């Protein structure tokens, strides 16, 4: 078992929960501890319930667990919301002087640390710092050196001036000392050790943004939507340093068309959105595919359909990404399985788009988007990234093989591997048009049956070429020889890895970062004794795909309540199939 500590701060929207959580996560990361965070939030600016949970350990942690060790409760509801996860040794830090916590009664025999957060914050220079007082109290209660928190406060507030930094440090110290003066932390049994390891701490949206800029994305067009907005926020202020630009469009239709326009001039361009935006972009997606324009469309999934649950987890858009749009058009669908993979797959998405002149759906989800996780910095090898631009012709002299007898450039040249050349406006001799209409090699409209057939086949052939040339493989974990197969796609990987570690039986786990094209595992499925497909939607969209591929039924483990899988949940579900009934009853 992992020797971990689960900490959270909870309150209402507007209480600064998110930034407080991030400051503590940063402090832990800087102390050489691994961190995996999760959030609960709603679509509102004030009120409701919101929390930021951190799981920290000395070894890498990659999922949430259903346990709460230390809880900062700014409201009584915070305690109610976490009741099932609290245990006898849990600590609850609260401010008994606040009306929000009036008449608060400790559940069962947990330890309550009643700290006058507000009063101490005012003493330090302002009530706004009460969460920082609570972080100071946390440090004392968990034997975590305050210096780490101070470092994090400096990072967070240095832009606001030294007075603000000092006040926050004072607030933390007051909270810290209050615990030491009034309680005996050694009774609690929590010790957060530090190491010399260096980690970076980032979330999936940031990893995608960093990957995009590193991959040479120079135009980002987007429209605000949860949970993809963070990508746009990340790009803004950073992409400009490398000659790029962020444009906030009037809607998602405009966003994808702006990105398309930029891509037609040869720029690496991208848009990111969530389900409702994907719906709006679908018509243009067909145009992008038909005109053979390289483009990356990022879909940070949330719970649908319609407005659904905008701040909740789901992997419900697989079908719409696979089949969305009228007619039949080529596409790639990548689904990074971890936050680090968000970075790597983004780079790969840009390369695939340009090598095959195909739009790429880069799929994240809410869980990846809002989770901050630690990694060794060398996981993000920015300087050794390979940028592959495909058959991108930027000199007139390179166009020669691609001209017809009249000297006209053929943007849809019918090649053996299906891949046609790409040039850009400004290049002499490369003038051509592209259109969403069926076209000939020159890009001119046609309804001539043999030409139509040739172009359809050519576009399909590109995917075949990609399958031959690229390594669209799964990631494998667990026991390679086991004939019990666990399969998933996208963000569930970390929770499943931890879950299978808890099982008595050995299982083989295949994690799919490629949805389309995807590795063919039909034989593996056919030969397995049991096949479990785990995903966050109600019908098992990926399971259906695999059943279709392998003509074999699989067992679905599904979740669609808006909350990501925890490792414990998955282990319990798998055990319900794998363990004899009498063991389960115990």
């Amino acid at each position, binding site marked *: 078992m992992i020797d971990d500590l689960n900490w959270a701060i909870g309150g209402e929207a507007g209480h600064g929960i998110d930034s407080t959580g991030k400051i503590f996560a940063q402090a832990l990361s800087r102390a050489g501890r691994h961190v995996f965070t999760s959030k609960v939030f709603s679509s509102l600016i004030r009120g409701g319930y919101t929390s930021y949970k951190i799981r920290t350990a000395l070894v890498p942690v990659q999922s949430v667990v259903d346990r709460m060790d230390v809880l900062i409760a700014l409201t009584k509801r915070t305690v109610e919301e976490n009741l099932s996860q609290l245990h006898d040794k849990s600590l609850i830090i609260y401010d008994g002087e606040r009306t929000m916590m009036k008449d608060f009664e400790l559940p069962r025999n947990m330890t309550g640390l009643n700290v006058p957060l507000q009063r101490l914050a005012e003493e330090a220079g302002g009530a706004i710092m009460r969460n920082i007082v609570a972080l100071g109290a946390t440090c004392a209660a968990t034997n975590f050196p305050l210096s780490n928190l101070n470092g994090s406060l400096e990072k967070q507030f240095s832009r606001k001036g030294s007075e603000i930094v000092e006040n926050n440090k004072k607030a933390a110290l007051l909270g810290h000392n209050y615990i030491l003066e009034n309680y005996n932390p050694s009774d609690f049994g929590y010790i957060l050790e530090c190491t010399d390891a260096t980690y970076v701490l980032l979330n999936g949206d940031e990893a995608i943004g960093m990957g995009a800029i590193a991959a040479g994305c120079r135009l980002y067009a987007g429209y605000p939507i949860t949970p993809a907005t963070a990508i746009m926020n990340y790009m803004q202020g950073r992409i400009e340093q490398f000659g790029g630009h962020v444009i906030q469009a009037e809607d998602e239709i405009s966003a994808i068309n702006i990105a398309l326009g*930029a891509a037609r001039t040869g720029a690496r361009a991208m848009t990111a959105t969530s389900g409702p935006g994907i719906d709006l972009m679908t018509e243009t997606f067909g145009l992008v595919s038909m005109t053979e324009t390289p483009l990356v469309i990022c879909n940070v999934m949330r719970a649908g359909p319609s407005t659904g649950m905008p701040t909740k987890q789901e992997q419900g858009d697989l079908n719409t990404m696979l089949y969305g749009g009228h007619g039949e058009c080529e596409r790639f669908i990548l689904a990074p399985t971890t936050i680090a993979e968000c970075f790597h797959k983004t780079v790969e998405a840009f390369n695939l788009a340009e090598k095959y002149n195909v739009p790429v759906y880069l799929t994240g989800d809410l869980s990846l988007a809002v989770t901050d996780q630690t990694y060794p910095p060398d996981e993000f090898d920015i300087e050794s990234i390979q940028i592959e631009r495909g058959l991108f012709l930027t000199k007139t002299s390179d166009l020669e093989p691609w001209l017809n007898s009249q000297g006209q450039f053929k943007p849809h040249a019918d090649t053996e591997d299906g891949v046609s050349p790409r040039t850009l406006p400004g290049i002499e001799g490369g003038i051509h048009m592209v259109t969403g209409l069926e076209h000939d090699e020159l890009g001119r409209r046609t309804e001539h049956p043999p030409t139509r057939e040739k172009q359809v086949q050519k576009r399909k052939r590109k995917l075949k070429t990609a399958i031959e040339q690229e390594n669209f493989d799964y990631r494998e974990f667990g026991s390679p020889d086991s004939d019990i197969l666990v399969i998933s796609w996208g963000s569930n990987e970390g929770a499943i890895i931890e879950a299978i570690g808890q099982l008595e039986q050995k299982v083989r786990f295949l994690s799919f970062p490629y949805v389309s094209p995807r590795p063919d595992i039909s034989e593996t499925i056919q030969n397995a004794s049991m096949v479990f497909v785990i995903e966050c939607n109600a019908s098992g969209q990926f399971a259906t795909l695999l059943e279709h591929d392998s003509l074999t039924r699989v067992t679905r483990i599904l979740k669609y309540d808006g909350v990501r899988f925890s490792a414990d949940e998955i282990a319990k579900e798998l055990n319900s199939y794998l363990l004899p009934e009498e063991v389960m009853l115990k």
Partner: protein
Amino acid sequence: MSTGANFADFKSDKKPTWCPGCGDFGTMNGILKALSNTGATPENTFFVAGIGCSGKIGTYIRTYSIHGVHGRALPVGCGAKIANPNLEVMVAGGDGDGFSIGAAHFIHAVRRNVNMTYIVMDNRIYGLTKGQYSPTSGTDLKTNTSPSGTHMPPLDPLALALSSQGTFIAQAFSSDLKRLIEILEAAINHNGFAFVNVFSPCVTYNKVDTYQYFRETLVDVNDIGHDPADYEAAKKLIFDHETEYQGILYQNPNSISYEDSHGLDSPMWKLPETPPEGIMNLLREFY
């Protein structure tokens, strides 16, 4: 006068399939003449065409071009210009494309003021779908879908552009080629989003907004001594719904394009051979 290509260089080898007499012929000729007069070259011009009869223009001209989805030509042009400010970006479409399905983009393209030229080939009818009313059809226009008239006032594109703080608002007539070329040249030279609504009569489905109608009724702003820089005077003409005007109704002489206000002056397509300086700072932030 011309330093770039000549008119014929901008013509493709495809013959237009527009109905004989269609206003789009004149509008297209005007566009090509204006382009060659301003020194543009086919290589450096990026042309975005909408969907509809007018959208076919992309096939008949010889420049880099894209024929996109219905109503979304403006965002494509906007993205192209931002990603490569060296290009001469031209967008052309019809009244349905621009003012109905694409109306939201029109308003925001006007506000954004990207340095490009938007030509609406306005025939006040849906032609390619064989005669339904368009957003600029008159209240009494009888069509397939408005057998007793539309019972709606027509959309006023000039007023819409003015209220969206447009910096260049003009109207022209496909059959007055001399004025059309002059106006389009000014539009191309304008530093910002230049909107030119060009009456391009549909000879098949619109028997009201005909060549004869425009010839008899259009008043040229030059003939009434209008100063396009005079906002109040422009407002008066644009909201005068008794008279239809030809010419530059409004041009903000102090227009600053989106690219200029964002410091965008280089093409974005070229990527360095080695990782750019400062790229590791992206990672350092997360320590």
